[in-house]
Structures are given as structure tokens and as C-alpha cells.
């Protein structure tokens, strides 16, 4: 045993609540309050994973979000791949697995790769597996490299909540700087939200010494938090501020200790205070990635929070003062401690029970699966079962960088610090370069000073103060041995030297070429040493090399948090018919059409579907069909300029329409392309109903609003989208009128009173009904619109009265056949993004209209006047042949080559005609009726005859039959 749990102490753990969990197949014991990492250390598990590329053994490095090595895949209901063992709470029954290791971290079968490491430097894969094709090699390489695995069988136990939140001040980080700033902001009468990614507030005060206002740090933290809570301020522990977005929107991801999914917060504060602390850097020496080598600050955190002593014989290597407190505490706890400081002079007093070696650095760590000792730069060898390093602190300025804040280089701190302030954002504490508590509190005061007079006093540091005393110790070019810069991506000094030799000297190139600073930790411990090394190699300063762009997220955020409730059916909710349940009880098979869930057909599932559809279409022609057309657009255009307005919006002149009449027409886009077709109903002088196609209602409504507001003025026209207020029930077929007369709608259905293309008004059971005689089937048809919530009795009555006529319920699929028999088009199916109205045979308005309309000028371009445009046609194949495949191309042969001259847009078997029918867009098609054309699909060529689009009742007799 080297690392062990002490019998007393540990501010974060609850010894009365022991827990057990599983790591790589073995049981690990711990206490409530442990992280997976602290429990593993307490059980002396040194190797917790394998590195990304070389499969080197890797141990725990840190005690927080910066962890590059100790990644685990957590299973169970809250399964998360690649999560940091240092932040993941240890829970009873949890199952965790090391990453990139088979079968486990200790006995990894791909460990042999490390012996070939000098053959696989940075970019090895790019260079080696180019020929003949990277994709040949990719699967095997990916299987050997990489990190955690997603459990593809796992299903989410629920969805993540998402909360929008507003406050005056958002303080990120509940360490001394954040707590002080929050308290002062609250004292100024502002609403404060305080977030921290740890379970307990306090930040570094949770394990570093401190006395504030004459009280121990722990007491001051407790009092401050209690005061904020009592003031009604929001405190969110286990919550990471992962991103600052435009206009200072802050994204938070909150974890829960129970089984709930994380919660995503979108916070809009007036002022953001970043008190995000700092992260300790490693030191460069050979084999500095061996298990048993930890951040010195992390070792102190494990000691004081979790009562874990990380070793018995410990070497602490440092270039600054902060490691002295660590060395002292470990020695007090009973470890044998040697402190190796690279500085010769200006070091603090040697702590009691600690051996101090001045002016020396580590040259190498020794050991295979875990560290067994170190070699100093003078050749001295020291035995050790644990090595702690402190290479100085890197301020956590990611959020400031994301907000486009400029950084300035501090030679004294050997770090980038926040530069000129960004509107609405201030930075305090170690993130701003403060070292002592006095500096920290002065920074907090400054951070909230602009927010107004506060009643809260600035906290005073009354205990011993931390000092910095930093002497830079960057990795140097030409160093001996394998010195790791980026543990997570297996980037060594030699890889960065290679990148420099190959001229990848810009930071952004360096990152992509070597993968320095990529993956889950985004280089929290490695970026700055990597930049400093590149600076050393290329003879530049660190600020000349610069940093890569800071981008969200600061730490990985589960996609479930971003998705929230927008999963499954809620991802893109369908619009539903008022009579959906009635149709279900009639055996309707539903499909989504243009965002609406509609009956495709009634009865006949799977293999029987086609037979059901054919039967519906045939019976519709024989007697009478009932169809739910509620999705049809019903957009009302009202006002003194309504007629002028619809004239401008439609290709066809509409102002000449008499009240009570309907007219079919096109709407074009400004580029002349047909955007929608439909019927316009004129209810009275100043009131129209735009009956646009179902899937275009939203777009047509938006277009009407835009032209109304931009060109006509709000007082001239009013637009009201009544589509979902009313259900529309369609009765179509030779017996349609008889059926309606049997039902009784309180209006004359006489053809003289209500001829084709007119509208009448009646009532049913006390409710107004609007009856429109328009037809999409070619048969006599009535569209009856009624208040949506009153539609059900009318539908029931229509069905009951229909029994005498053998009425048939038809779904959208049968309707598609009926309309195609008539050559009626569906925009977007029988047209594409180049189809102009005259391609569809509507030439009149183009040649005759003198007034302005949307898209007009585009109909007179060279392109619009081309004589070989694709035009709408019917395509006939002999009886007994199968329907043409939709999308098949009409072809012509020139010099032995095939050229497309258009394509099939709609194709069905017509039960009424007993043969296939099809529509298509074919070059010069309108002038080629009777011509035979070759149709090719997937290499097969068939013949078809070009015909008029209408294949059934071309004279239109059935409209009045």
C-alpha cells in the first residue's frame, strides 16, 4: 500500500455512509462525498486508463475539471462516456470502466504500441496511410486509438430540463473571490446567482489555509453562503458555466446527484463576474506521465477534502511557493517528503519535517506501471512512490476568451491574464492573477464597484497570506527523454519539435497537426507549456506565439442538455387534425405529409395498403367519397385594399372575381418560380380566403404579412390565418350533392344557386358552414368548412347518410391518384425550383396582364423565354405494364450518349382507367403530345408516350354530373 485513506479528517466525505462501486471489474470502497478518483486513490488504484495513442498507463493527475488522464465510461441510467473520474461523484452501485484499455487499464493488450512510439510521431497516420486509401485503414486504427465508448443500447431515462434565467449579477465560481463578489453585489441590492462546478462552495479555500475576518475559512464560507441563501439569491452547486455567447448569454450545465438528467440554464445577467480560479501546470521531465505523478495542489485537495494520503515517500517538485504548504501538510500527515525547488534563492522557509533540495529540477521519473523514483538534473536518484509537481498556475480565462476578451502576458505570473475589460464582464481572484487573499478580495471589490454602493464590507484576510514566487520552468527544445506536454493526446516535446520543423508554427496549425489541446480537457494543463515550447523553438516570446481561439464548451456538456425536451416526437412535432381520433377508430393508417399527420388510407396495413388505396380511388369515382381536407389553407385577407393586395400576390388577376366566386391561381416567387397554387375565394367586396396548399400555409402566411407590412401598410389590409380554426370536410363524387341534400346544410345546392367555383353559406346544428364548390378530384365536389370543435357530429352525419350511397372514406394516397388522373399538380412534386407558370400551361396572365404582380419581371428574361423549357405533360405506358418509377428520366441519345430531357414527377396505377398514369416535366413537352420517349431508371430503359396531363374526363363533364 502506498496511497491510503487516513482514519480521521476529510471535509467532503461522510464516513457514516460507506459506498461500493465497480471499476474495471473490481469492487472499490468509498464514502459518500468521494469522487471516483478520490475513492480509487484511497484504494491505491494507480493505473486508471490508457493513453490515446501509445496506450501508456495513466493515473490520476488532478482533482477537478482539468483532469487529462482519468477518464472513465460510467454505465447505468446516467451513463456517460469519457467522464472525468475527478469530478464524477462516486455513487453506490455505479459501474465505471477505464477508457481505451482492453480488457482493463492495468493489463491492456495494446500496450505493446508504446514500444513502437518512435515510429508513430505526430501526423504519422496522416502520412502513412494515405495510399491507397485512408478509409481502408481507418476502422482498425480507430479501434486501437481513441477514448471512451458510447453504449449504443442505452436509452435515456428522461429528458433534460432547460431553464431561462435572469439576474442582475451572475458570479461564476464560489471560491473566495466569487463569494466575496457575490456578497458585495447582494449588499448593493442586486439579485445574484452564484454557480460553482464543485459540490461544495469554497474553491481553493476547501483545502488551502486561510483566515478571513478573524474566522477560519470554513466558517466564513458557511456564513457567506447562508447569508446569500437567506437573501433569496440563487446558489447552484455542481454547475458549470460552460460558455458565454453573444450579448453575454451564459450557458450553465447543472448536474444532479439523484437520477435526473442534467439541467441546462440559459442565463441573461446584467453583469458577469468571472471568479473561475486557476489550474496548476505540470513540469517538464522525462516520463512525467507515469501513474503516481500528480498535481501538488490536487494532492492537498485529496488530503484535506477526502482524507487520502497519496503516497508514503513523496517527492514534491516545484518552481513556486504554493507547493510548500502541500509539502508541509503531507509531512504532517505522516509522509516522508522531499521538496525539490528549481529556485536557488528567494524560497520560503523550509517546512517542518520536510527535506528541501534547492536549485534542482527533476530530469526523469523512473518506473514502469507507476512511479518508483526520480532522477534529478544532477544525476541524484531518489526513491518515491508518488511525485507531486507544481509548475505554477494558469488562470482559468476560458470564458473571458470566449467573450472575445483580449489577454495580456504577465512575465511575473508566467501566464496570460485578462486584458482590457469586456462590456458586462469583470474578472476577479486567481483568474485575474491574484495570489494572496488580500489581492483576491481587492479584486472582488473592484469587480462589483461599478454596480453601485454596497452595504457589505470587503472581507479582510487575517491569516498568513499565500505568496507566488514564480520562476518559469517551460519545456525546452532538445530535452532528453520522452517529456509529455499533453497527456490526453500523447503529445511530447519531440512532437512539437517535429511540427516546428515541418513549419506548423502557428498555434492553430500546431493544434491540428499534433492534436495538442484537443479532446475532452481542451488542453487545460497542456496549452501553455506547448505554446511556451513553440516560442522557445522558434525564438519568439509566448505572447508572440499567442493562444488558440477559446470556444465553448469549457467542459463537455451532454448533448441531452442541449436537446432538452426536443427528442422523439417532440423533435419536430406534427400538426394534428381535429378529427384524428375519429379517423383512428375508422382504421385510418396515418402518415406525415408536409408537417401534418393525416390518414394515408383507411384499413389495409403493409402489403394490403396498395389494395386499400386502389379500392378507395375506384369507389370514389363510382359514387361518393368523404375526405378530411382540414389542412387546406384558410387565410383571410380583409380590408379596403384587399382586392389590390391579392392582385399583386397572385399571378392571375383576382380583383375581377365577383363576391361569392372562387378562382384557381398561382403565387410566384420574385424569381418567377411557382411557389404555391390554390383557390382564392371572394367572400365579399373586401374579404378573401386564400386556400393555399396544406404544407405551405405557414410560408404563404409569412409572405402575405411581409408584402402587407412592406408595401401596402397595416391599415389597408388585415390578414388572419384561420386554417386551424376550421375543419374542412370534402364530399366528392357523382352522388355528392344527393348525400349533402340528405344531410341538409340549410342552403340551396341547386347548380343554378351554387355552381362550380362558387361559395355558399349554410348551417349545421346551429353552426355556420361555408360550402365551397371546388374540385381536386375532377368530380362534383363540396368543401364544407365548420368550426373545428363542431366538426365531429357533421362528419358522423355525413358518414351515416353516406351509407345509402356506399360512400367511401378516402385518405391522401387515393386523393393523389384521383388528382393525377386529372393532371392536377402538386407544387414541389410536379414542379421544382425552376418551374415557371407558363411551363405548366398557364400563359394568359404573362402575355395579357398589365398590372404589377410578384415575380412578373422574371417571366420575361432570356431564361424564361427559352424555347426548350421543361413543360408539364402526361406520360402513358401500355396497359399491363407497371407504373413508371417516379424520378425516372426522359432521355435522348446524341452521338451515342444519353442526355436527360426531363423526369417523371408523379406516377400511379389508375384503378378507374385500368392502366398506369404519370405526370412529368419534359423538354418542349407541351408541343410533343403523341411522341414516344425513352424513360430510363437505374439502367433500365422503357418507352412512354407523351400526352396531355389530363388522362380522365378531359372535357370536365363530371364536375356537374
Amino acid at each position, binding site marked *: 500500500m502506498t496511497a491510503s485513506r487516513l482514519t480521521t479528517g476529510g471535509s467532503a466525505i461522510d464516513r457514516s455512509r460507506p459506498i461500493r462501486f465497480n471499476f474495471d471489474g473490481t469492487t472499490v470502497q468509498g464514502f459518500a462525498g468521494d469522487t471516483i478518483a478520490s475513492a480509487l486513490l484511497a484504494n491505491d488504484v494507480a493505473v486508471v486508463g490508457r493513453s490515446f495513442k501509445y496506450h501508456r498507463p495513466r493515473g490520476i493527475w488532478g482533482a477537478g475539471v482539468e483532469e487529462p488522464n482519468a477518464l472513465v465510461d460510467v454505465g447505468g441510467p446516467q451513463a456517460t462516456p469519457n467522464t472525468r473520474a475527478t469530478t464524477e461523484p462516486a455513487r453506490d452501485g455505479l459501474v465505471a470502466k477505464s477508457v481505451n484499455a482492453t480488457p482493463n487499464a492495468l493489463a491492456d493488450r495494446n500496450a505493446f504500441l508504446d514500444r513502437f512510439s518512435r515510429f508513430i510521431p505526430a501526423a504519422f497516420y496522416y502520412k502513412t496511410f494515405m495510399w491507397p486509401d485512408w478509409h481502408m485503414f481507418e476502422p482498425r486504427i480507430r479501434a486501437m486509438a481513441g477514448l471512451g465508448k458510447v453504449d449504443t443500447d442505452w436509452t435515456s431515462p428522461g429528458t433534460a430540463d432547460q431553464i431561462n434565467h435572469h439576474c442582475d449579477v451572475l458570479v461564476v465560481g464560489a471560491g473566495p473571490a466569487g463569494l466575496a463578489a457575490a456578497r458585495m453585489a447582494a449588499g448593493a441590492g442586486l439579485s445574484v446567482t452564484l454557480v460553482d462546478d464543485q459540490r461544495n462552495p469554497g474553491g481553493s479555500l476547501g483545502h488551502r489555509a486561510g483566515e478571513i475576518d478573524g474566522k477560519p475559512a470554513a466558517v466564513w464560507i458557511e456564513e457567506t453562503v447562508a447569508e446569500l441563501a437567506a437573501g433569496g439569491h440563487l446558489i447552484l452547486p455542481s454547475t458549470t458555466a460552460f460558455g458565454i455567447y453573444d450579448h453575454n448569454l451564459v450557458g450553465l450545465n447543472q448536474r444532479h446527484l439523484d437520477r435526473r438528467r442534467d439541467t441546462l440554464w440559459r442565463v441573461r445577467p446584467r453583469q458577469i463576474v468571472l471568479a473561475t480560479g486557476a489550474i496548476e501546470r505540470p513540469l517538464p521531465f522525462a516520463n512525467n506521465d507515469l501513474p503516481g505523478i500528480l498535481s501538488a495542489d490536487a494532492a492537498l485537495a485529496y488530503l484535506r477534502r477526502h482524507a487520502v494520503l497519496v503516497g508514503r515517500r513523496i517527492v514534491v517538485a516545484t518552481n513556486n511557493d504554493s507547493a510548500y504548504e502541500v509539502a508541509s501538510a503531507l509531512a504532517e500527515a505522516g509522509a516522508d517528503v522531499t521538496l525539490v525547488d528549481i529556485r536557488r534563492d528567494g524560497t520560503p522557509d523550509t517546512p517542518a519535517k520536510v527535506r528541501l533540495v534547492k536549485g534542482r529540477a527533476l530530469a526523469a521519473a523512473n518506473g514502469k506501471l507507476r512511479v518508483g523514483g526520480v532522477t534529478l538534473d544532477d544525476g541524484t536518484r531518489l526513491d518515491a512512490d508518488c511525485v507531486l509537481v507544481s509548475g505554477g498556475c494558469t488562470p482559468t480565462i476560458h470564458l473571458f476568451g470566449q467573450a472575445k476578451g483580449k489577454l495580456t502576458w504577465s512575465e511575473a505570473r508566467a501566464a496570460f491574464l485578462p486584458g482590457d475589460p469586456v462590456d458586462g464582464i469583470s474578472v476577479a481572484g486567481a483568474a485575474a492573477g491574484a495570489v494572496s487573499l488580500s489581492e483576491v478580495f481587492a479584486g472582488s471589490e473592484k469587480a462589483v464597484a461599478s454596480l453601485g454602493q454596497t452595504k457589505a464590507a470587503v472581507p479582510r484576510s487575517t491569516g498568513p497570506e499565500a505568496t507566488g514566487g514564480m520562476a518559469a520552468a517551460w519545456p525546452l527544445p532538445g530535452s532528453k527523454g520522452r517529456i509529455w506536454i499533453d497527456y490526453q493526446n500523447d503529445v511530447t516535446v519531440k512532437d512539437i519539435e517535429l511540427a516546428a520543423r515541418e513549419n506548423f508554427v502557428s498555434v492553430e496549425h500546431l493544434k491540428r497537426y499534433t492534436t495538442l489541446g484537443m479532446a475532452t480537457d481542451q488542453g487545460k494543463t497542456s496549452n501553455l507549456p506547448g505554446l511556451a515550447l513553440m516560442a522557445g523553438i522558434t525564438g519568439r516570446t509566448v505572447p508572440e506565439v499567442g493562444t488558440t481561439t477559446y470556444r465553448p464548451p469549457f467542459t463537455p456538456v451532454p448533448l441531452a442538455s442541449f436537446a432538452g425536451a426536443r427528442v422523439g416526437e417532440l423533435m419536430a412535432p406534427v400538426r394534428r387534425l381535429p378529427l384524428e381520433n375519429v379517423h383512428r377508430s375508422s382504421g385510418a393508417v396515418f402518415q406525415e405529409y408536409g408537417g401534418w399527420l393525416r390518414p394515408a388510407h383507411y384499413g389495409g396495413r403493409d402489403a394490403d395498403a396498395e389494395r386499400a388505396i386502389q379500392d378507395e380511388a375506384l369507389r370514389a369515382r363510382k359514387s361518393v367519397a368523404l375526405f378530411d381536407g382540414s389542412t387546406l389553407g384558410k387565410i383571410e385577407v380583409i380590408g379596403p385594399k384587399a382586392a389590390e393586395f391579392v392582385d399583386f400576390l397572385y399571378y392571375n388577376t383576382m380583383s375581377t372575381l365577383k363576391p361569392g366566386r372562387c378562382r384557381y391561381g398561382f403565387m410566384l416567387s*420574385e424569381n418567377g418560380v411557382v411557389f404555391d397554387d390554390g383557390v382564392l375565394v371572394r367572400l365579399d367586396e373586401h374579404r378573401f380566403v386564400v386556400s393555399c396548399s396544406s404544407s405551405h400555409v405557414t410560408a404563404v402566411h409569412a409572405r402575405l404579412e411581409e408584402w402587407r407590412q412592406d408595401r401596402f401598410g397595416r391599415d389597408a389590409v388585415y390578414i388572419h390565418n384561420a386554417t386551424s380554426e376550421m375543419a374542412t370536410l370534402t364530399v366528392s363524387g357523382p352522388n355528392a350533392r344527393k348525400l349533402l341534400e340528405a344531410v341538409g346544410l340549410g342552403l340551396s345546392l341547386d347548380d343554378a344557386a351554387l355552381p362550380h367555383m362558387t361559395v355558399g353559406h349554410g348551417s349545421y346544428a346551429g353552426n355556420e358552414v361555408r360550402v365551397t364548390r371546388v374540385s381536386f378530384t375532377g368530380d362534383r365536389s363540396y368543401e364544407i368548412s365548420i368550426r373545428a370543435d363542431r366538426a365531429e357530429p357533421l362528419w358522423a352525419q355525413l358518414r351515416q347518410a353516406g351509407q345509402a350511397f356506399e360512400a367511401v372514406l378516402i385518405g391522401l394516397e387515393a386523393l393523389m391518384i384521383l388528382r393525377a388522373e386529372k393532371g392536377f399538380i402538386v407544387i414541389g412534386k410536379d414542379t421544382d425550383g425552376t418551374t415557371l407558370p407558363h411551363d405548366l400551361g398557364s400563359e394568359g396572365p404573362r402575355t395579357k396582364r398589365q398590372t404589377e404582380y410578384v415575380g412578373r419581371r422574371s417571366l420575361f428574361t432570356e431564361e424564361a423565354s427559352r424555347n426548350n423549357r421543361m413543360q408539364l405533360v402526361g406520360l402513358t405506358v401500355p396497359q399491363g405494364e407497371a407504373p413508371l418509377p417516379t424520378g425516372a428520366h426522359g432521355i435522348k441519345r446524341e452521338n451515342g450518349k444519353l442526355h436527360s430531357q426531363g423526369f417523371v414527377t408523379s406516377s400511379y396505377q389508375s384503378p378507374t382507367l385500368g392502366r398506369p398514369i404519370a405526370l412529368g416535366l419534359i423538354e418542349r413537352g407541351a408541343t410533343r403530345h403523341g411522341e414516344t420517349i425513352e424513360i430510363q431508371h437505374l439502367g433500365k430503359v422503357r418507352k412512354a408516350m407523351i400526352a396531355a396531363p389530363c388522362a380522365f374526363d378531359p372535357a370536365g363533364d363530371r364536375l356537374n354530373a
Partner: protein
Amino acid sequence: MQLFPCPFCGPRDETEFHYGGDAGNARPDGADVPIDRWAGYLYLRGNPKGSAHEIWVHMTCGEFFVMERDTVTHKVLSSAALGGEHAA
């Protein structure tokens, strides 16, 4: 995520808005508009760096309005309801 000021509703999240094109792209009427002028109206856009006048629509209330914003800093400089210069 940006906050846009709808002249009717006040500041709202950018996800509630749709972009509607350059402001001031006046429509030339008539079947004999010179083709270059018409093509410019359809396709030519200023794509300015810095201050830009744009039409936006607030989807939840249906209001179209002109917003001036900085395409570099994303700062919103002004917003005003349509009308006047655009109304016929």
C-alpha cells in the same frame, strides 16, 4: 445567442426571429425594368462589414421591422417598425 428588440414586444431571443433581407432594397416595378436592375434587386447584396440595415421578422408576433446592427461585434444599434419609406 443574441437579443433582438422587436418594436412591438421588446427584447427577445434571436431564435424567435427570421432574417428578411437587406433593408432599402426597393422593388422596381414593371415588366420593362432593365434586367440588370431586376437582377440586382433579386440577388445583389451589400454584405457590409460593420453597420448593416436589415429587415427582420419577429415570428411570434409577425412584426417586420428594420434593425441596424454591427455585423462584426453583433451590437444592435437600432430597430424600427416598417412603414413610411417602404409603404406605397
